[in-house]
């Protein structure tokens, strides 16, 4: 119970940090207070409904996004132990984050409006493009560690971080991480050219929960990079939880920053890149790791 509260607190704090960092990047020399003011505004804002919206689907999607992010985070070690110790933690993590597909599609479809629907289409296409390389990257890690348990994956990196000897898998993981959280160069499903896409018709509390879910997902995919590739809580002097936190913040800052400095990649282009370059590259990486492990 205590650990679950720690997890919620950590995800909430880091999500707010990510929002503040993004706001500071957007408005240099100010803007740090914007996310909290925005929360206040959305709390007071009226909830609007579109015509013939499927409210049940929309609310399932809006809450589902936050739920899958937290559930995916439950298997990540917060220092030494995760909230839920699972022999198939890596699979669980992957299964939960795929729930984001469902969540976005339910919202995009359910509100019965054009731009959210287009955002939903884009996310399904994005999912088809990033998910296979992403899974191969995770499989490479599991193969290197000989286990699907996060604790074993961390233990296997005592000598050398997986980021160092599986650089391709790490790079692909980072790309798929922003794609999964539909962030930065992969923010097509929620991008400004379609009026904000999936959440375009959400207002008030609905929009607030959706945005919270998006930031939570970004935090969780950044945090997962730490046990998967960056040695987990291992490090000199400081306790494991602090190392975990520091590494998570570093990855999170990198992902948030990518959103300011890179244009949004069009989905047809990314699909081509994914199938022609990323999948073969991850398969080669998998082969190399298999040979080394043998």
């Amino acid at each position, binding site marked *: 119970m205590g650990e679950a509260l720690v997890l919620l607190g950590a995800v909430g704090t880091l999500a707010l940090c990510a929002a503040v960092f993004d*706001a500071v*990047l*957007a*408005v240099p*020399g*100010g*803007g740090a*207070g*914007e996310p*909290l*003011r*925005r929360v*206040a*505004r959305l*709390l*007071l*804002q*009226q*909830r*609007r*409904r*579109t*015509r*013939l919206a499927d409210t049940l689907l929309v609310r399932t999607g809006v809450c589902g996004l936050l739920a899958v992010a937290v559930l995916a985070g439950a298997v990540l070690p917060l220092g030494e132990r995760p909230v839920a110790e699972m022999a198939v933690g890596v699979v669980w993590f992957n299964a939960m984050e795929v729930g984001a597909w469902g969540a976005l599609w339910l919202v995009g479809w359910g509100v*019965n*409006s*054009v*731009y959210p629907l*287009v955002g939903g*289409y*884009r996310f399904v296409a994005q999912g088809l493009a990033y998910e296979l390389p992403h899974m191969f990257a995770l499989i490479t890690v599991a193969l290197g560690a000989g286990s699907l348990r996060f604790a074993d994956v961390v233990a296997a990196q005592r000598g050398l971080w997986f980021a160092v000897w599986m650089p391709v898998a790490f790079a692909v993981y980072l790309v798929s991480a922003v794609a999964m959280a539909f962030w930065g*160069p992969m*923010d*097509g499903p929620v*991008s*400004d*050219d*379609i*009026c*904000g896409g999936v*959440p*375009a*018709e*959400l*207002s*008030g509390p609905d*929009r607030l929960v959706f945005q919270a879910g998006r930031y939570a997902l970004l935090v969780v995919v950044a945090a997962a990079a730490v046990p998967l590739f960056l040695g987990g809580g291992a490090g000199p002097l400081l306790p494991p939880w602090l190392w975990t936190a520091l590494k998570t913040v570093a990855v999170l800052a990198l992902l948030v920053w990518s*959103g*300011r*400095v*890179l*244009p*949004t*990649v*069009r*989905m*047809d*282009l990314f699909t081509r890149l994914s199938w022609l370059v990323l999948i073969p590259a991850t398969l080669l990486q998998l082969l190399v790791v298999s040979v080394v492990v043998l």
Partner: protein
Amino acid sequence: MGLSGWLAGFAAACPRPMVVTAPHGTRSRLLVEAELSRRGWRHAHAPSGTGLLVVCGTPADALSRAVEMVWTTVPAPGELVRLRGDAPPERVAAALDEAVVRLARPRSPGTDTGERTDVPMADRGPDRDGLTLDRLRVPLGPVLPDWPAGLVVETVLQGDVIQRARVEVAGGLGGERFWDAPWLAALEGREVTRGEAARRLAASHLDSLGRLLAVAGWPGASARARRLRDRLLWERQDQWVRRDFPGFARAVRRSRTLKWVLRDLPAARDPAPGGLVRRVGTWLDRTGLALRDLDDGRPLDDDEGPRGPVGGEPSRGLLAVLPELVTGADLAAARLVVAGLDPDLDQLRGARDG
């Protein structure tokens, strides 16, 4: 009421404005954008995400109806600010301040209301893969972020692919052609320096770049283009602009991701090599050249405005090729193509509602 009153005041300082521009409202749009950037207010991109709808210029019938429709979908608490096309900077700042004061007033919480109209389902038809899919009639514009003021592209969509497109104009009252003004004034015999024209030309291209980069989803570079534009146009910090511009131009030119994203997208009817990538390069080149001439005191004696000869209404030509260029494209590509054409509907004299 205490807590919600305090929250209302706290929230009002960042209302996430959404800016709608009517043709001939370009000047006030630019003033508003400069003022918003000075205040550090980020833009909203949909009515449901905004607390403040800012209308620049005076919409004529069709656009006026569109604005009314959008206003009914802005959730409470929301404020509407209308600025005439010739509003001075002080008026812009004052109007925004007044809106913040009104937004900060505590009020009773809103209820679940407000339904918007449905998109008509047109029919079904074969798509580009030979599947029979639903077709939707969807107008793009006139109220759309980073979109030419007054432009409406009536589309038939299948999925997010445009099957048919037709251009209409939602006009505005007034007659100012902000971007062409120096050349028009010179043609009328008034004294205009080449430096003033160069300033307007550079600012116009920076405005187009800011819009294209925003549509391309590169907020950092877009904000930089707009900051350069504002400093050049309103603050007249020429030294600062000359110092900062080369770095900006280099970053945009070197971005491989941008080249990749714009690749294969047309900038004109003839499939000229380079397409949109070339267009971005041209804008940067011409801006760089114009920045050298800011102090040129000789009288202006040509009519080459930012979009071509100001007497020829070059934007009419851009609108004529637009439907062809976006047909068959998906929405992401179509938005980039429109931003690359960047027609200036202020040029369409007598253009009222289509």
